[in-house]
């Protein structure tokens, strides 16, 4: 199965189903239904559906994972009644939100109020189409997939601001302003940290970046970049300690104060989708993606779907780190956050870039080893 890709699997599925349906149909219909274009088109649809479903389920399980971890950090249990160990609790919550009435404040702007959360959710979903999750399990070869992912990722402040402004609430507006300021401030160090990785790996393609890490994972030599990247990701994901846009203590719920029902669920889902994307990016850029170090026994890496398995394990562990940070740190203040962003993070990320350049020039660095030949 290791050679199978997500697309080949969905193509096989569609082809199999359509051939069997066509075999019982009369000839002209049979020819039409098994024609290559239709199969390809349906395969793409199935591909999208699988992606959507997988990312959705992963997101919801991620929420469960956070609740359970946070519970233990706080000396309690987390969700535990619906399903085994509360696994179905979030599905139940989602269903409840789905059934709730969605209403709009009278003075709110109709278009922005409804399009904001929708666009926020959709753009967060789209990124999953780009991210590779194992060798071959991607949407084909996109040479600039990293850049594209980050570009879509940074759409968010726009939509947040639109929905905050259009909901015509002072708290929402303040939250939206904070969110825009924060995301723009942390976009720069985030991208600079990525530049460090790109310099070392010599490619914007995520698959290439992962294969560049076959000798050593980048988190060791590029530790500075990792720190900057994680901090920037925390700010982008709006998680504690950088969750001031929705600082519930003073701003009620920040930019989603006026949202209820499914629209709120959109925000919630999109937040966790972004958290998932953040964790995945950390794994891809710094933790070797789906590959494992060579000293790991091959039995642990050669079973079917081993790549996806290890990838998910790493992703959830990285998210566990975010949860740990959330469990132990209070929220910072806007001015402090921005000051740290512009005054500390950008110089740090520039340092990281220089370090990366030095790493490339040196080729081999002592405890880690050498870069693969593909390097610049």
């Amino acid at each position, binding site marked *: 199965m290791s050679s199978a890709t997500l697309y080949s699997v969905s193509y096989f599925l569609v082809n199999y189903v359509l051939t069997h349906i066509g075999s019982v149909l009369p000839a002209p219909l049979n020819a039409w239904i098994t024609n290559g274009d239709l199969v390809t088109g349906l395969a793409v649809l199935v591909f999208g559906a699988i992606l959507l479903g997988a990312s959705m389920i992963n997101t919801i399980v991620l929420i469960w994972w956070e609740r359970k971890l946070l519970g233990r950090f706080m000396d309690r249990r987390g969700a535990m009644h619906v399903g085994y160990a509360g696994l179905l609790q979030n599905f139940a919550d989602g269903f409840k939100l789905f059934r709730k009435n969605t209403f709009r404040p009278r003075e709110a702007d109709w278009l922005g109020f409804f399009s904001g959360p929708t666009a926020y959710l959709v753009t967060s979903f789209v990124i999953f189409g780009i991210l590779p999750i194992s060798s071959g399990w991607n949407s084909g070869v996109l040479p600039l997939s990293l850049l594209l992912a980050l570009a879509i990722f940074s759409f968010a402040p726009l939509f947040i601001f639109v929905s905050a402004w259009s909901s015509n609430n*002072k708290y929402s507006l303040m939250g939206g302003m904070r969110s825009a300021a924060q995301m723009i401030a942390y976009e720069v160090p985030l991208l600079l940290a990525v530049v460090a990785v790109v310099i070392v790996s010599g490619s914007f393609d995520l698959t290439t970046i992962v294969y560049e890490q076959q000798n050593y994972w980048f988190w060791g030599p590029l530790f500075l970049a990792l720190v900057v990247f994680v901090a920037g990701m925390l700010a982008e994901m709006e998680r504690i300690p950088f969750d001031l846009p929705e600082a519930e203590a*003073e701003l009620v719920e920040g930019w989603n104060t006026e949202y209820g029902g499914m629209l709120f669920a959109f925000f919630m889902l999109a937040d966790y989708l972004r958290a998932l994307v953040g964790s995945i990016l950390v794994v891809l850029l710094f933790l070797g993606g789906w590959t494992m170090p060579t000293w790991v026994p091959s039995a642990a890496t050669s079973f079917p779907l081993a790549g996806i398995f290890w990838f998910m394990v790493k992703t959830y562990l990285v998210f566990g780190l975010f949860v740990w940070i959330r469990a*132990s740190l209070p*929220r910072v203040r806007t001015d402090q956050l921005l000051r740290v962003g512009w005054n500390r993070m950008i110089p740090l990320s520039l340092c990281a870039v220089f370090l990366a350049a030095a790493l490339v020039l040196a080729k081999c660095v002592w405890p880690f080893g050498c870069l693969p030949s593909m390097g610049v």
Partner: protein
Amino acid sequence: MWINMGPQHPMTHGLWNLRVKIDGEVILDCDPEMGYLHRGIEKISEDRHYNEVVTLMDRTCYVAGFAWEHLYILASEDALHIVPPERAEYIRVMCEEFQRIGSHLMWYAAFVQDLGLMTPFLYGMRDRDIVLDLFQSYSGARMTYEYMRVGGVRNDMPPGFSAHARRALDWLSDRFVEYDRLCLGSEIFRKRCDGLGVLKASDCVATGVTGPMLRSAGMRRDVRRDRPYSVYPQLDFEVAVADGADVTGRYLVRMEEMRQSIRIIRQILDWLDHHPGPVLADRLPRWLGAPYAPVGKEDYVLKRNYPKGVGLSSIEEPHGEAQAYVVNEGSEHPYRVKFRSPVFANISAARHYLIGYRVADIPPIMGSVDVCVGEVDR
């Protein structure tokens, strides 16, 4: 731009409204609006018997019920010329000190949660539960105790209480180290709280601010020491003082007060172990006993001509200096009951410690005031 923080707002911890005028994120003006929880406790008290008012006292400040019971009982004993047995006084002081720990733990939980940190909230609530367990073991309720009576307390400690209490105290004093590590040991916490909500001692005195807020400004005023009531003169403790006059200072003062409370309770437990005795004054007027039957058209009390009196009591409640003024006109109901709530005065000075800070600073500052709306509105 004026924004209303409240009456339903995560910052308020109760029902009140803080109207804030802001420019961007900076606070230009503020105006607290109270009264959303006004239940007319002073008025209802006028229609109740002396002991029945105790049921209202638990609900005056729902996180410091024992302190308010003690306050009211001290004043009405003065007004009614009744002297409680010594053991009852020790038990009351123990209740008050345990309540101080419970209230401060509740404060700790809510305050750190305002900073966005959820973990200490659960630690604080978990450890407060220990205190509530102890309360329940002798008073029979976890928050609304109805335990103190004019002339003593309702019942004595159950057997084995002091061993359990000591174990709980050991557990609690270990936990305080953990609390400090979580808060003071965190750079972000210090950045958020140092130099925030400064209210200098002179301003505190002018605006009537008392309690941990005053002591965090370096002023060593504590009713327990300055005007000792009940059995406090026999107890050895220190008054916690900090010098920052800011949020961190208030945090430090409250943490130190909890340690001192543990010290006081240990002394009281030693005393209680060696001095058995009655806990209720033995000869009480009929209408102060629990089985009181108001009867007939004749006003029995006026017939007996019970001596009139006025009582003023003042205690160091967890939030500050609380006072009660009870007027006894010789009837079975108090003629007038008036309370001074420390939080009432502390909130009224809001303008002095909020203006000039940022919107994000409101939750920690108001959290450090430890607002309990129940006792402000009464």
